[in-house]
């Protein structure tokens, strides 16, 4: 996946993940299986009335 390659090279500056209020039980994994461990910094959260939560992260050590 493109995002894995970009993550490996520290080319992603911001991650915005939308968490939907549902448990699927099975399916495709986010970021694919087998990427490296990465610690991020939470910079923002936002909640929609639908129950979606938007989580925004940046890589640790990366300034805006």
């Amino acid at each position, binding site marked *: 996946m493109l995002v894995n390659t970009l993550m490996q090279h520290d080319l992603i500056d911001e991650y915005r993940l939308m968490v939907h209020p549902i448990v699927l*039980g*099975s399916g495709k994994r*986010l970021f694919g299986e087998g990427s490296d461990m990465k610690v*991020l*910094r*939470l910079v923002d959260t936002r909640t929609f009335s639908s129950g979606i939560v938007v989580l925004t992260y940046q890589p640790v050590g990366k300034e805006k």
Partner: protein
Amino acid sequence: MRKIIFQMMVSLDGYFEGPNKELDWHLVDDEFNDYASDLLSSVDTLLFGRVTYQLMASYWPTPTAKTNDPLIAEKMNNLPKIVFSKTLAKVEWNNTRLVKENAAEEISKLKREPGKDMAIFGSSDLTVSLMSSGLIDEYRIFVNPVVLGSGKALLKGLKDRLYLNLIRTRIFKSGLVLLCYKSGRRK
């Protein structure tokens, strides 16, 4: 009726443990411990699957735990606990009862008895089986600001989709995000 609260630490990519069972990425600090202490005061029974039970039973009664987290250790050690396992032969952690069969039936019965709410920490397999029986009332998911890349997936193996209601979020200074959901949303 008493509620059952499920609580789990999870990585941003949805794993509850690393590929070698690592849990060292959990962001536990004073703010989290204050939250945990409040939660433990609001429940009167803790429910576990075998794996989580054994992990916790090997930590909370130790001098290390009593020195590092005295308040939490006291509550974890004193609260009544039930472990659901077909294979465990005996339980040694203080105030623990072993239930070998029919977890769902036992828990339905407990929910109808008077008392405070009950909590399940971790225990993914047990939780998935209880979810299928509609026995979990509240989900508290702690999203840690880390991508693990591989490991064991949260709540894997549920057969039908489960739609939830977001009831609350809380942001911790450490970057931990608590997402609280209630069961029962219609599609």
